[in-house]
């Protein structure tokens, strides 16, 4: 339907499922009988407007091409480019466009129209992909009628083992609407292949992962954090260790996009938590080439390599959030990436004072990596609301808790050196006379999250790359909306 080349001066878009369209039907009928040449397009049931000799626009191509947002829409084209349009029933507007003074005398002066079918949720992006120019540059993989798109994604090696959302132009274009950044902008080079990644490639992988467009700025920020050299994503991917990026979200965006920081926070079930973390992993796999068994040489891997992303509980003002501790303003949206493993459950249902719970937590934190290793890995402690409550009621804040935990984990080097206690593993024998910290002072990250009931907390061991104190660190980045 070559609408753009239509010779008609007057176009009218209608649908049956619109009371205002039905209201104007006799008016248009009358005009047509008087010889006014109006080209009518019907979006749903053309037969309903049979007497108006309408064009069938159930494909919505003409509605899309004329950028119709409302039905009825009356459009007058005058020469090249210049058009007048009236949306809904506006007696004066219609009279002016059509030059008929007594038009619709029996009708009210004004009736608003209905939304155009071409603007219904999920429709517009498909029309864009079919009739518009979405400008996607990535190479296409053509599917035949009998191809199963989900299976093709597996065959191409694009998945982490779970099904992915097939990346069609409509879905990619919709994802790109989640950011103001240009599709061809290069965000960085993704290890291990150090392949350049554009915003468009990130969007394709966010589609695969199942993200919504409003998550996309978070995915981009997480990617930027992962590509910061000091995050050492390259080593983290190729390592024989268990670790992968653990992503913590701070700021109001967590609530805006429906993230979970409460019950089952480190588990399954929340779309934003699940897919943001997964998008980063799929980018590393698909763009970076970080495929298990090839350059991902992890002995065991870990469930976090599918996805590990959650929000901090910022509903209690007495708790200073992770991002504020790391130098960002309260209320700023941030992602923090930590190189970590799965969860070591911490159970303490007996401690009643801050001192008791500190000793108790410290005893479990000492097991991170190996009880005799020190300043060798970082750690993330996910402190539950009930455990925090023990501190809060005595007025302990984040700083005091952190300081007390570090202090509780200082041990004589003589007990930790290699061979001590009949255990080969341990710190260097030269440190036998030192008092030794378990973690670097900045190497213990505490996040408050989890369900309101349960005297448990969660410890995520850090990666062994953390022993290079100044070379491999967690990274926090601002999320730009």
């Amino acid at each position: 339907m070559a609408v753009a080349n239509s010779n008609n001066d007057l176009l009218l878009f209608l649908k049956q499922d619109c009371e205002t369209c039905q209201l104007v039907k006799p008016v248009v009928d009358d005009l047509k009988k008087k010889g006014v040449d109006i080209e009518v397009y019907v979006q749903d049931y053309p037969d309903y407007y049979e007497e108006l000799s309408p064009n069938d626009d159930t494909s919505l191509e003409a509605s899309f091409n004329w950028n119709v947002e409302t039905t009825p829409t009356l459009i007058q084209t005058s020469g090249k480019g210049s058009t007048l349009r009236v949306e809904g029933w506006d007696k004066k507007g219609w009279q002016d466009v059509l030059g008929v003074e007594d038009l619709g005398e029996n009708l009210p002066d004004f009736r608003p129209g209905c939304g155009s079918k071409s603007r219904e949720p999920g429709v517009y992006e498909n029309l864009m992909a079919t009739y518009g120019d979405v400008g996607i540059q990535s190479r296409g993989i053509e599917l035949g009628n009998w191809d199963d798109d989900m299976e093709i994604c597996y065959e191409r090696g694009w998945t982490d083992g779970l099904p992915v959302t097939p990346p069609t132009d409509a879905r990619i274009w919709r994802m790109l609407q989640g950011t103001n950044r240009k599709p061809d902008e290069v965000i960085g080079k993704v290890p291990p292949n150090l392949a350049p990644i554009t915003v468009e490639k990130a969007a394709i992988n966010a589609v695969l992962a199942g993200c919504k467009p409003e998550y996309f700025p978070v995915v981009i920020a997480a990617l930027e954090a992962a590509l910061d050299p000091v995050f050492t994503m390259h080593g983290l991917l190729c390592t024989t260790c268990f670790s992968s990026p653990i992503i913590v979200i701070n700021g109001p965006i967590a609530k805006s996009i429906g993230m979970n920081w409460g019950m089952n926070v480190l588990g399954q079930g929340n779309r934003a938590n699940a897919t943001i973390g997964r998008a980063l992993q799929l980018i590393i796999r698909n763009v970076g080439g970080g495929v298990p068994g090839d350059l991902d040489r992890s002995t065991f891997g870990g469930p976090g390599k599918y996805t590990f992303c959650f929000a901090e509980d910022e509903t209690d003002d007495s708790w200073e959030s992770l991002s504020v501790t790391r130098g960002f303003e309260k209320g700023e949206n941030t992602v923090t990436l930590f190189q970590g493993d799965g969860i070591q459950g911490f159970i303490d249902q007996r401690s009643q004072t801050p001192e008791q719970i500190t000793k108790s937590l410290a005893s479990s934190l000492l097991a991170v990596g190996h009880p005799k290793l020190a300043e060798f890995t970082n750690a993330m402690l996910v402190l539950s609301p009930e455990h925090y409550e023990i501190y809060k009621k005595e007025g302990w804040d984040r700083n005091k808790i952190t300081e007390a935990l570090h202090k509780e984990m200082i041990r004589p080097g003589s007990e930790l050196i290699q061979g001590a206690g009949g255990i080969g593993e341990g710190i260097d024998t030269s440190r036998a006379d030192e008092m030794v910290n378990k973690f670097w002072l900045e190497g213990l990250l505490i996040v408050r999250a989890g369900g309101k009931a349960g005297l448990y907390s969660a410890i995520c061991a850090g990666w062994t790359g953390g022993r290079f104190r100044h070379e491999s660190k967690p990274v926090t980045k601002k999320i730009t909306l």
Partner: protein
Amino acid sequence: MIASVLRDPTAETTQLKRNRLAPPASLDGKVVALMDIGKMRGDEFIDRLEQLFKMKNIATKRYKKPTNTRTAPTELVQKIVQETDVVVIALSDCGSCTSCSTHDLNDLDHLGIPGVSILTEEFREAFNGQCEKIGFDGASIFTPHPMQNKTTQELHDFADGILEELLAKITQPV
């Protein structure tokens, strides 16, 4: 007919087709599956291959699909995976044989069994097209076409003619 288009999420630094699994460095101690696709007279060709492998002290096991017009039943695929290390699939000389046996080659490759498909020259394009569609860089060897009207001796001669190429494709180049 093109029904839809998906966009490549990779860095596009590699070809679209997935590389086939690397075959073993040598066939010592390995078992080669000789998979008859179930098409007429393929067995005569495979009989000769079996003899040739035996002469070279290479262990083989014979398998046969119930029909060349479908992909191999899951049970057969799993049996080959359990019992062998490399697969030789023969002999495709028609459209459905080619499409189905190429899927068999791909399915076995996914399960850790590298292999080669043997087809007649006429179906070189069909094999390459099917590989293109499923994104698999499968290995193939082609014999003269047609083969249905040949004598048994001629089919054996075809097998003799491709033996060295076959051995090269089911072992890694040194």
